[in-house]
């Protein structure tokens, strides 16, 4: 029996492809991975990601050619359970965690993953951000209850890493359709200013500068300072800020910024970092929507995998990553979204144009879950 599959080129959107392949059961073949690069083939962090996928699934077949430029991935069944993974420090844990967030509700056993590596870096969404944005988002899709938790045990900054994160997620058979069309108004801003292996004063400096900008809009701001010491502080020094704005309807928009890794780039002033991060948050608010730009694809995936009902979601402008994700969803699940642009009137001071995404769920049911 020949199952269906898809072929792609290039290493970009690598995670999307593997995740969707695992969920849809279609095999995927990725060719020409960095074939013209100086260092061709899969890189360490991708290999680490594949290993993680292998750990959470059962019966997955992975074939990689000699140079690592061709990957064949035949997914198995999502298994879950206790997983420990050493994430490659080239990318932060967020890189791996984003995929886990997508897969976790569809496992056979509730996932309990311990990920070790870099918790905050400049490339990927940090664990702090995912904790405050993705987890509430999952709750709105009916994935809630006891088990859903993301806990930062230790912090680790690049290049050394050494952080540790615990992610647990319950299992669901079906996902609820959502109608998130009204983001509401932002009622409070929270944040975490963290610093490891540097002066604890730095966090306070960040907080002050960030507040100076955000105070123009709203007084309800509280930014926690999180200074970790000793074993919990990881291997490299660094600091950063993650901000989140909560709306009256329980939507979360986030922004974050981390310092340059040790030995790379010029050292940053904490004041600048705070200011820039606050501005990033304002930018995010300008974009608006019910889901912030990093979680767009997660929300769209859950909408796709819902029951055969209409889901609606208001988003800010679609990020390139999301756009490719939509294309991939069409490839794997044959589902297209109705995309409507909601114009903002001139005098309304509510940021940029929004996009209303509507789709009919695929009627996906978790086939891994055991029937007792």
């Amino acid at each position, binding site marked *: *029996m020949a*199952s*269906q599959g898809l072929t792609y*080129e*290039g*290493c*970009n959107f690598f995670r*999307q492809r593997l995740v969707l392949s695992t969920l*849809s*059961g*279609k095999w995927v073949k990725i060719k*020409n991975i*960095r074939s013209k690069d100086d260092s061709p083939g899969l890189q360490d962090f991708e290999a680490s990601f594949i290993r993680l996928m292998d750990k959470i699934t059962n019966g997955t077949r992975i074939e990689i050619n000699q140079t690592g430029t061709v990957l064949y991935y035949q*997914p198995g*069944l999502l298994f879950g359970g206790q997983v420990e993974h050493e994430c490659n420090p080239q990318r932060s844990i967020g*890189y791996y965690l984003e995929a886990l967030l997508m897969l976790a509700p569809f496992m056979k056993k509730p996932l309990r993953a311990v990920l070790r590596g870099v918790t905050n870096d400049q*490339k990927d969404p940090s664990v702090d951000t995912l904790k405050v944005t993705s987890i509430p988002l999952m709750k709105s899709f009916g994935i809630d209850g006891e088990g859903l938790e993301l806990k930062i045990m230790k912090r680790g900054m690049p290049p050394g890493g050494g952080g540790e994160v615990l992610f647990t997620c319950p299992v669901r058979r079906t996902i609820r359709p959502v109608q998130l069309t009204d983001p509401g*108004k*932002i009622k409070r801003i929270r944040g975490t200013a963290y610093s490891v292996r540097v002066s604890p004063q730095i966090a306070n400096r960040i907080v002050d500068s960030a507040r100076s900008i955000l105070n123009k*809009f*709203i007084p309800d701001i509280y930014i926690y300072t999180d200074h970790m010491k000793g074993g919990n502080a990881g291997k490299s020094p660094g600091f950063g800020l993650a901000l989140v704005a909560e709306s*009256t309807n329980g939507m979360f928009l986030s922004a974050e910024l981390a310092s340059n890794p040790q030995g790379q780039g010029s050292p940053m002033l904490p004041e600048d970092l705070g200011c820039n991060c606050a501005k*990033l948050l*304002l*930018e995010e*608010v*300008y974009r608006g929507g019910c889901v912030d730009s*990093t979680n767009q694809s997660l929300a769209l995936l859950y909408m796709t995998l819902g*029951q*055969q*009902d*209409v889901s609606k979601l208001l988003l800010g402008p679609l*990020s*390139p*990553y999301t756009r490719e994700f*939509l294309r991939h969803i069409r490839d794997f*699940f*044959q589902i297209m*979204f*109705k*995309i*409507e*642009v909601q114009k903002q009137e*001139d005098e*309304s*001071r509510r*940021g*940029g*144009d929004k*996009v209303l995404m*509507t789709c*009919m769920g695929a*009627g*996906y049911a978790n*086939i*891994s*879950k*055991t*029937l*007792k």
Partner: protein
Amino acid sequence: MEAKEQKRHQRKQSGPKAERKKSRKQRAPGAEPDEDERRRNPRAFAVQSAVRMAKTFHRAQDLKTKKHHIPLVDRTPLEPPPVVVVVVGPPRVGKSTIIRCLIKNFTRQKLGDICGPVTIVSGKKRRLTFIECGNDINTMIDLAKVADLVLMLIDASFGFEMETFEFLNILQVHGFPRIMGVLTHLDSFKNNKTLRKTKKRLKHRFWTEVYQGAKLFYLSGMVHGEYQAQEVKNLGRFISVMKFRPLVWQTSHPYVVADRMEDLTDPETLRVDPKCDRTVSLYGYLRGTYLKNKGQVHIPGVGDFAVADVSFLPDPCPLPEEQKKRALNQKERLLYAPMAGVGGVVYDKDAVYIDLVSSHVDQPQAEMRPTAELVQSLIGTHATLDAKLAASKVSLFSGAAAMTPGEAENLGEQQAPLENRVWDPVTQRERRKAVFSDDEEEGDGDESYEGDEEGQSEQGEQLSEEEEEEHEYSGEEEEEECSDEEGLQGGDEEEKSSGARESKVGEARRGQDEEEKAPRVKRQRLERVEAKPPVEMPAFADSEDDLEMSGDDGEQSEEDEREGAEGGTADSGHCSEEEVDDDDEDEAEDDNEEKQDGKEEEDDEEDDDYDDDEDSDMETEVTAPVNISKPVKAKVSVLSEEAEEDDGDAGELGNESTGALRWKEGLAQKASEAFLRQQQAAPNLRKLVYGSVIEEQNSPSDEDADEIGGLFRVSRPEKSRSRRVDAMDCSRFVPDSPHDWDQEEVLNSIRDCFVTGKWEESKDAATLLKEDEELYGDFEDLETGEVHHGKPAKEEDSAEESGEEEEEVMVKEDAEEEQKKKRLEKKRRLKERFDSEYDDGDATYFDDLKEEMQKQAELNRAEFENIDDEARVQYEGFRPGMYIRMEIPGLPCEFVNNFDPHYPIILGGLGASEGNVGYLQMRLKKHRWHQRILKTRDPLILSLGWRRFQSIPLYHIEDHNGRHRLLKYTPQHMHCGATIWGPITPQGTGFLAVQSVSGTQAGFRIAATGVILDLDKSVTIVKKLKLIGYPYKIFKNTAFIKGMFNTMLEVAKFEGASVRTVSGIRGQIKKALRTPSGAYRATFEDRILMSDIVLLRSWCPVSVPQLYNPVTSLLQPVGQKDSWSGMRTLGQLKRDLGLRNKPNQDSLYKPVVRTKRHFNPLHIPKQLQKALPFKSKPKQDQKKGKTPRHLQRPAVIREPHERKVAALLTALSTVHNYKTKKAKAEQHAKHKEFLKQKEREEMEKLKRQKEARKKMYRIMGQKEKKRERSSLKGSSKDD
């Protein structure tokens, strides 16, 4: 013997009893008596026991909640597909007759052979599809999965047959659709009573199988080979008002019961290789749920296939439009059964097949058929002149068609094999395909020829010709519409089909002719299309597309220019529908020409231009994220930037320079520009994400076009693409051109996003407060009598009015209206608040859930309602109820060659990852009616999901510790686990198993039933393994054991494992020994013997054989479809090959020879003996043997006197003995005599009595005789 009729009960009319009853009756209505009783006898109504009351309450609640089902979202389509009515029963029970009668009842038409599904319109809101189910178990299984209603025919004269019960069991496993039993052959009962009894017996048996009170219908007798009209009518009524239950599998999977099949394979490849894989299009109503294009389907009896293309066609059997009328008129009573050769006009994507009734000589009532009416209505359609012109060309062309009649025949056969089979050639009924292409024209020519032969009147011929024209035209339109709206398939399909047709004809000249003609027609169409107002155009009728139109206006000139230059090609980002069409046509033309004349360079140039353009377009669009990072770009959201890139194709450079200028301009201007750009961008968002559909379709031809003259390739800077393809995989969306958040204007732009900003009118705190004031403002303080007034609500309004007195009356009226509205609004809100306060208490969780579901259902219905079907299909997939055409490539040739319309073809859609194979764990129970238990590793045919397949199950049972232990056989009457290698199917799906699907065997065929529990890629079944070892040295509790393992390593693996001797002494493996390899040291709880055997009980995993063998019963030759046989069981193999198992000699049972056991004497130590009590002391006495001499007693020698005395005594006693003996004998004889005497007396007494009786009887007899005689005499006197 009839039973005596009982006397009926007479009700008392008077008397105290009657009065009492009367009074009670009078009192009964009304609650008073209750009250009275309550008052009179309060104890009877008091709480006797709180516990019992609680129990009663609990029970009442339990019963109430039991009635609740988990509410589900109502997903039934607005226009449901026809109801599938499956008619089942053993052979010769009257299945076809009942279908025929029902069809006649509903449509007033007679259908000869029931071949394949027959769809009819049965009422204003209901259509029915009748399918006859043969006696083959494959068919029964397949149809049970798609049935909505099962008419179960039972031959009452015979009683139930095994098939009926088998079918019931199949239904139970695959969800339980509605069942209606129909008893036939009731006229064979001569006796009314047996008839009644039989009915009752059958009814009760049926009820136990289905449910108490299941409907059983009686068809009493036949009239002229049909059932009685009234009875059929009643049955029809039952069917047409029946409600159906949603079945889990059916509602979660899309499926199609194909009612039409066409082979699309290229005839040339067919000629070259008659056994090549076929491309087949299958038609039918979509049922179940939404079907996504390009999915995977399973065809039971054939296998899994990927669908190449799905498209929807106009409904061939639509429901009547006006709903007001009471009954259907004749026109609306449609019948559609292409497999049975009925259906009139059948549409295809690129063809229309017409069954011409006029040429039908044998059927006099043909005019009455709705099909004919359909054709007539088609004739009635008004055709434009150009269409007629085009058509007339075709008819001109048909004159030459007679040149290759053989070819045409061939074609016809291949296109419609069913009809050939179904219809007798004697009836001369042809099937005409009216298509706007060469092969069709050929067919036309032929048909007109035939018409001549038949000697039809000229008029008729003309009519038919006209008809043809009409149909051709309509077909063309159809096609147009398809290509117009679909866009997706449009160009490509046309290209393909035209190409295919060309090759079919195989004549160059004709092909050229066609080339010359076809495009012209298409151009005509094009013009027409372009003339249409733009509103009608958008294929994806999003609201944005209209905007696009308006947005495009500004750039129209620019685009026009480009179009002029490129000859009608347009860029993908902007292509509105006309342009798309244009492109398609051009492309199609080009391609055709290419095929025709080889590669022409001029054409290629054009193509290249076009393709290049498109490609570059794609790239710009695609590389957008990379480009954005250029700092020159204006400050706008990425959205708008993409748009810019889209419209700004080639002139990026210019754009950039302007962008650089703009950078320094004022913010307001920038904002307005951004706004403009956004407006332009909006419509393209969809295309931006999903790309232009046409682009994708054309991409292969793009690659072809890359080659210039077949030698050189156009080399394009690959960098951008590769960069994108290998870019960093990151979900963060970093703003490329961040706003300057130091400026006040920018800050103001998001001011309202915060709670501190301005709220909407309806949610503003001030408004809310005011409303509250309005609602609750007026009140009267009851204590003081003071009346408080809220602020007059319309103060402002009135103020405004007074201020604007000069306004006209109209405005005032408006204001009044407004006031009224506001009042209403206020009322509504008040009511809402009241409701929410007072209803909330009652509303349970269940109610809330139900309401939520209701809302969701409404949303589902409303969301895509206004979009036209072409776009809608892309968003939600094909809706159930649509008539669709599925193109499936790669079907085995046997499917077409051995096609038999009597066997249903079902296309079952597969969900995500249901196309994969893996291990399935299920709970299984041998069917209690199946005679034998099932053996592990015997192949079994399972029906699971859509599939029927053979697999090898391993049976197992779960031990108390969760271990799955392998079983050799299924338990007799118990569930057990089973694991197979098979298709991934969601848990909770039921399955059934049979041992063979070929022929009919004795006994009940369904071997087992069960349910899927778990899917896993690995198995956990284990079987017991006992390892044996022998001690070779024994210390106290320690022993050295050898022979269990071979190496030290093996021992090391089992260190700490527990062992046991045969006698039950437990122990543990400690450590491996060096010398005899594999030996180890073990400790036991007691000292073991050298003769003991040491056992190690372990479990070894068993692997499940990976056999998945779909039952390909549909591929069997016609007439042998029920003879599929797969892998044989070991037993069958041995039987067939005549092999007998040679058992291991050691395993044979032999007579047990037991050696006599010899026990050593028990030795008790002396010390112990001493201590023992006497009772337990070993007794020393020997057995009595010969008494030794010294112990022998001496003999007694008597004295002579003594001797005499003794002798006398002996003599005396002897005498005495003799005397007593004698006396006894005497006594005995005396007694005997006495008994004899007594008996004799008795006898005599009896004798005497007998005599006396005799005497008496004689006298009595004589008396009687006398009386008789006297009476006779009397009577004789009378005479």
